[in-house]
């Protein structure tokens, strides 16, 4: 018994799942009509569906971010890449280009942004924080330049399907996120790629000694993170049928990093938990929805978010855990 309990507590998913469950139970008990899922025009509607749909961009970004953080890096540029891909998509849609072009060009631009980040980090050896800061600062400027400083509006039903479409009652964007997640999960866990990524994060020197090509793997994860941001950019742009280079995806990089950290992936790199990041993204969105549903104003969301971030980081800190278990056991002894 004494042996078993800590194992459960140490599981990477335990605390985040517990927190998510607590949030949901709280809502079901105290928020009116929270658990209700209605069927309207053959589509599912309701608070829970809303949370799922709204967390898709963070899930997408979090997937890319998780791999980047696992290598010991960070990608601050995703918000700016969202603005760039959204701007290109909106411009093409406004000028009536065919759908494949509207989708392919922004994604290509996002991929190039990711490769650029990867090139700076892996080839030139710049710290990830700084390397991606460059694009974070200038990317939004580039997006504004593309848009000429204006909000580009468009109307293209086939393009808007990305955010407005439904398949079997569920929004298309959820399938999109699920597909990306499934693909990443397969590639990282069924091949050695996941192991390589983790080994670079745990010990770069040792992984080089065993012959892992850190340069190409880092290039791949940053490129992938860029691509994820590109998809999120198309999604967010079609949602409002316009490109707002100033505001689209603002601070989303922070949410993506938070989702990853809440999910149990350490910022120092190493083991990564994709499912954890999804839970993290859901927690962030549920928290926001809960607070708004409680009638509390938006600013309070930020304060609650701050408290949640610190509490979850504390729970994951080994120092805090040993202090806590020392407090609970009366003695600080550990097995």
């Amino acid at each position, binding site marked *: 018994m004494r042996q078993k309990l800590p194992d459960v507590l140490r599981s990477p998913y335990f605390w985040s799942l517990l927190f998510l469950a607590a949030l949901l139970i709280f809502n079901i008990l105290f928020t009116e009509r929270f658990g209700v899922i209605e069927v309207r025009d053959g589509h599912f509607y309701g608070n829970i569906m809303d949370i799922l749909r709204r967390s898709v961009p963070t899930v997408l970004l979090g997937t890319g971010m998780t791999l980047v953080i696992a290598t010991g890096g960070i990608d601050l540029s995703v918000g700016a890449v969202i603005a760039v891909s959204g701007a290109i998509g909106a411009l093409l849609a406004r000028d009536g280009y065919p759908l494949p072009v509207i989708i392919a060009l922004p994604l290509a631009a996002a991929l190039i942004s990711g490769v650029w980040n990867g090139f700076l980090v892996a080839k030139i050896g*710049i710290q990830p924080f700084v390397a991606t800061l460059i694009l974070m600062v*200038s990317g939004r*400027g580039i997006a504004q*330049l593309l848009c000429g400083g204006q909000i580009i509006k468009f109307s293209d039903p086939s393009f808007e399907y990305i955010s407005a479409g439904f398949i079997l009652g569920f929004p298309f964007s959820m399938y999109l996120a699920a597909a990306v997640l499934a693909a990443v999960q397969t590639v990282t866990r069924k091949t050695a790629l996941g192991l390589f990524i983790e080994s670079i994060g745990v010990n770069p020197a040792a992984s080089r000694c065993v012959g892992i090509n850190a340069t190409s793997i880092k290039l791949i994860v940053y490129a992938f993170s860029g691509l994820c941001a590109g998809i999120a950019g198309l999604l967010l742009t079609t949602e409002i049928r316009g490109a707002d280079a100033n505001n689209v995806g603002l601070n989303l990089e922070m949410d993506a990093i938070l989702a990853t950290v809440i999910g149990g992936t350490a910022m*120092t790199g190493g083991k990564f938990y994709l499912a954890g990041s999804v839970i993290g993204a859901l927690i962030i969105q549920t928290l926001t929805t809960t607070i708004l549903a409680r009638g509390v104003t938006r*600013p309070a969301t*930020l304060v609650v*978010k701050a408290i949640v971030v610190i509490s979850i*980081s504390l729970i994951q800190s080994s120092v805090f855990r040993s202090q806590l278990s020392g407090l609970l056991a009366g003695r600080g002894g550990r097995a």
Partner: protein
Amino acid sequence: MRAPNIKARHVPIIATVVVFGLLYAAASMHFRNFFSLRVFANLFTDNAFMGIVAVGMTFAVLSGGIDLSVGSVVACTGIIMSKLITQHGFDPFLTAAMLLAAGTLFGTIMGCFIAFYDLPPFIVTLAGMFFARGSSQIISLESIPLKSDVLTAVAKFGIPMSARVRFPFAAIVLVASVLAGTWIAQFTKFGRNVYAIGDSEQSAVMMGLPVRRTKIGIYALSGFFASLGGVIYTLYTSAGYSLSGMGLELDAIASVVIGGTLLSGGVGYLPGTLLGVLIQGVIKTAIIFDGTLNSWWTKIIIGSLLFIFILLQTWIAKSARFRRSGP
């Protein structure tokens, strides 16, 4: 190949000085009236709050950390200051002193989380950023004007530089902050510990340096300068607004990096940060002088400058490593 008296770690700051000189000279030649005492004084005044915040940021970066909370601390300071003075009639100077203490305390708390629980500064100060921004929005979503005759008089105070141009209060505070920061970094035990931690935290621990105490001190200092920046910003705009200082942390980090401080920590000088701030100021002013370029060019140019400086830093770090490991 190797110049005699220049060490590798001096190259970034020399590059900063050269870039500032070139930019300033180019702008002075290209625009009429750019090379004037008034424009020069305005470079300091318009960027005073950013510079003051960047002084604190320099310490965080020197130690290998980061402080993302500064922008929201500026907003929070501004909104509390305006509210207390304008709506509740508090004494202006007492309020300012209280807010400086509060900012320092806020930084100390973040520093404690970082030092005692080994949490990444990025996450802790991100939480601090959310907390301060949220608090300022809870206090007031609307902009609150600052109404105080004494403070208006203080803000208008300035040292005469010529018949018509004065070096204003905000600029004086900026210069004083940089001087104080330089003194702390170069001539105190605390400053040497900051450099030591930035160079190698493990070695600092092994040498028996007070790493935890120093880390707490660093974020306390950053909190102090952030709230001082907030007070100056409030005087400058005569109002407190919960959305001000958005993205200021990035501008401050960019100033620090352009000013020649290595983001990996351990190398850098406070006066470099001031130059980094002034370089951004010259770019902004030149774009305003030009009139045809849009504000987004500022972002693109600063991004490019960042890129060049970081390339330079990486090249220096590599050559230094080569020299150390070479025969």
